[in-house]
């Protein structure tokens, strides 16, 4: 009876229907309806997202999805951005490129985040994929402009080259001239991270001039201000523009040609760059300000009045990145000028100074939250906070999806009451029901985690530093946050108990990072032994952890689920806790008591219930970031 139904639709029809289904979650669901749908779906999946490059091996991906055209991979843990992950940890993309070179000759798009990319990789990409279109290297490292030259020279159909925030060995701007004169397909170029003083301006201008579909152009600092007019003149269709240096001695002719160039860019919606700003040149962008939806002034070191003057011209602004020079007064002005604001990021101008250098407090953020009803995403660095302010923010911005607060001094209490900020953050998670990402700071006890576990049901990523008092805190989070995918913790007194009691939870998450906490080596070994589908990696640069008692806490711990087993590209200071039965558990004193076995049996029971297909499907879940 069921067979009949399955045969009534030819495969081609199903495939055609599936082609309208883009989201990974839906695709995964489709693939589990029945075996034939699984087969059809896997042959027509074109786009794949792998949130942790070590969760699965290239071969496994290729075996299941033979016709992929677009791949996105993420490598190092997020805390690598802040130098907490030692160099050489891993995240090498070469094995992936090497396998895909043979298996996916029609691969068009590669997007990488926090991975190590070498010139060899780039050359291999240039050589292997004839229809290559999109290369995004977000926070990557390990390559130089020579590798980029290879891409430029070979990829005739390249649309997008985005190097944002990558650490590139910039050997000078000559790589740009490797784009042949016949090449015209560029749509997006972001080279803003390149650090050399040299750039081949003529090559750049010619490239911009002949690529009439160019929509995004983000220049690097080496491009001087007086060249902007020329470049914009060749690309008036730009939607997203990032300047290079935006400072020079004021000359009226330079200014007027700059202003003229900006005003002819009718499609311009996003501006960034603005290194070394000379305030007198800012009015040159006024002609476009009314249409701007995104403005990145986070390298602009000018004072609040000048910033406010600029922002008053931008009523359509949805996204603003700015330094704390804007101060409370500036944010107040922002809140009255920019009612469409959805995302605000305020960065510290002097994060390591002991005393505040600007008058930016919690008040600035509160005033924006009170007056900007569409606010969804906040990243805010400040030096003081209060529960009252956080409660006000929570009640007035129930639509927040991302809230990251960094109070610069660790463990800073509510400045009004000297209490911990538990209640304030509790209000955030209670009122903001769609909160997906949260970063905590300030003085926090286990109570804040109790609130998070109870209310933050949609929370996917949580970052914790210098907070909590005991394992109960971690237990609240692991047992309560149903949607949790990524948890990163540093310098908190969380130890073995919560981790081991919630071991099964870790298989439902992408990863857990814990550094400078209190998890013992013995617990790591136990976890690695009992949970074969978790990779438990101990990072310790001071020497092998088994040279110390099992009760010693490990320096850094990174746990992630994987169907690929332990990796083999680890540097000397990373150890994987394996399922090896030869592993000796060195329990000092007491042998493992019955409470342990009870725990472990429970963990194993849960694992047995989880079908493998479901697990594999979960690995392909779409990320929101």
């Amino acid at each position: 009876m069921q067979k009949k139904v399955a045969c009534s639709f030819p495969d081609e029809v199903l495939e055609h229907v599936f082609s309208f289904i883009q989201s990974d979650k839906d695709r995964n669901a489709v693939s589990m309806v029945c075996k034939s749908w699984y087969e059809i779906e896997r042959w027509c999946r074109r786009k794949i997202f792998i949130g942790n490059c070590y969760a699965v091996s290239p071969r496994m991906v290729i075996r299941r999805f033979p016709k992929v055209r677009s791949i996105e991979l993420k490598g190092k843990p997020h805390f690598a951005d802040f130098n907490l992950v030692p160099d050489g940890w891993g995240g090498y993309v070469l094995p992936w490129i090497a396998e895909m070179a043979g298996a996916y000759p029609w691969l068009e798009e590669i997007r990488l985040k926090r991975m190590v990319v070498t010139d060899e990789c780039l050359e291999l990409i240039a050589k292997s994929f004839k229809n290559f279109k999109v290369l995004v290297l977000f926070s990557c490292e390990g390559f130089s402009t020579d590798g980029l030259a290879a891409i430029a020279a070979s990829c005739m159909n390249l649309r997008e080259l985005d190097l944002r925030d990558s650490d590139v060995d910039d050997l000078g701007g000559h790589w740009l001239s490797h784009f042949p004169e016949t090449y015209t397909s560029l749509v997006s170029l972001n080279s803003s991270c390149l650090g050399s003083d040299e750039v081949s301006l003529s090559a750049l201008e010619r490239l911009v001039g002949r690529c009439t579909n160019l929509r995004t152009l983000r220049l690097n600092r080496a491009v001087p201000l007086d060249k902007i007019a020329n470049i914009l003149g060749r690309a008036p269709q730009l939607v997203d523009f990032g300047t290079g240096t935006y400072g020079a001695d004021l000359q009226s002719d330079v200014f007027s040609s700059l202003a003229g160039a900006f005003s002819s860019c009718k499609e311009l919606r996003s501006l960034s760059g603005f290194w070394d700003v000379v305030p007198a040149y800012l009015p040159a962008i006024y002609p476009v300000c009314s249409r701007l939806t995104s403005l990145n002034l986070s390298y602009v070191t000018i004072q609040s009045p000048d910033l406010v003057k600029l922002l008053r011209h931008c009523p359509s602004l949805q996204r603003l990145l700015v330094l704390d020079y804007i101060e409370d007064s500036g944010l107040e002005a922002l809140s009255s000028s920019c009612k469409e604001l959805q995302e605000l990021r305020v960065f510290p101008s002097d994060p390591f100074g002991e005393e505040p250098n600007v008058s930016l407090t919690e008040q600035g953020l509160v005033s924006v939250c009170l007056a900007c009803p569409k606010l969804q995403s906040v990243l805010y660095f400040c030096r003081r906070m209060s529960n009252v302010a956080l409660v006000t923010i929570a009640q007035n911005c129930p639509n927040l999806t991302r809230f990251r607060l960094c109070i610069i001094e660790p463990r800073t209490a509510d400045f009004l009451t000297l209490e911990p900020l538990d209640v304030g953050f509790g209000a955030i998670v209670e009122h903001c029901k769609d909160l997906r990402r949260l970063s905590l700071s300030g003085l926090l006890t286990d109570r804040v985690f109790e609130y998070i576990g109870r209310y933050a049901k949609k929370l996917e990523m949580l970052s914790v530093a210098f907070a909590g008092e005991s394992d109960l805190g971690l237990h609240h989070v692991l047992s309560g946050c149903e949607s949790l995918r990524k948890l990163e913790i540093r310098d908190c007194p969380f130890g073995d108990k919560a981790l081991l009691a919630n071991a099964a939870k870790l298989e439902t998450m992408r990863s857990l990072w814990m550094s400078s906490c209190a998890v013992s080596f013995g617990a790591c070994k136990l976890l690695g032994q009992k949970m074969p589908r978790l990779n438990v990696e101990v990072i310790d640069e001071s020497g092998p952890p088994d040279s110390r008692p099992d009760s010693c806490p490990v320096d850094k711990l990174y746990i992630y689920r994987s169907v690929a087993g332990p990796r083999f590209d680890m540097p000397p200071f990373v150890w994987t806790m394996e399922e090896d039965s030869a592993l000796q558990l060195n329990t000092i004193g007491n042998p493992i008591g019955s409470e342990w076995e009870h725990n472990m049996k429970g963990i194993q029971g849960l694992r047995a219930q989880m079908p493998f297909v479901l697990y594999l499907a979960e690995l392909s879940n779409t990320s929101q970031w």
Partner: protein
Amino acid sequence: MSTPLEHDYIGLSEASSRERSSEKIPCSSSTPSIEDKTSTDTLLNLKETELRLALPGSLSPDRKLSLLRTALDSNDKSNGFAVYPLKNLVSGAKRGFSDAIDGPNGNGKWVFPMNGISDVDLAKAPVLASPRAVPAMKEVAAVPLSPKSTQDKKNPVPPASKAQVVGWPPIRSFRKNTMASNSAKNSDDVAGCHYVKVSMDGAPYLRKVDLNTYKNYVELSSALEKMLSCFTIGQCSSSGFPLRDGLSRLMDLLHGSEYVLTYEDKDGDWMLVGDVPWEMFTESCKRLRIMNGSEAIGLAPRAMEKCKNQN
């Protein structure tokens, strides 16, 4: 409540030891009692009596907020994963940290095994997870301040020597370096970071160091030595990555001055480290390279010792 002088570093055990009053601490030789199985409630009620990371007599306003707390019972999940006190794994902890716990304050009141510095200073001093052999980078990456000086200092002078916790505040390197070079241009004190890459001939990957965390050549070279001891040269697995082996060969080589420390300056020239005063060096250094001695001949080779003596 009489505070036991010693207990292990997870505060929960204090309550559980109150429950088992017959036990002494350290209790590594005793078996957990049946009471522990029902201790979920006990654990969850610990908030009232739990130790805090603070000095005796300091404010603990949190306790007063207990009125506002809803019953933790509402959170009590019967999922079979109740948090039992897992003394067994941590009971040995105090042996590792006995010197810390028996530290200057002598009362082991720390939930977290820090050495005997006050809560205020914890925020300012580099955070060390344990008093065991401190990870190499941390030892030099953070300049420890004595508690007294941190509290008493009211420094109007730009605080270039503030102890920096690694990776805090969480700002990306690109931004840090950009801001640092901004302020250098404005001739303020560069309180930010100055990351430079360190490459070593034959090593599989680069390292990065923050020059601002060192005060002189001696500190830099000892930091590099410690850092590079993670490399193993001469033995690689088939995938090209070094195996975890001993590390002394590298050290011998460094000491035996087969290798020379060089740097690339702003003009792109490669110079020997140690020729110029430290401040001049940090300003002009763009990257470091540990070069094979034979390659460095053109740079007027000198021994590493001389570099150290320069300071």
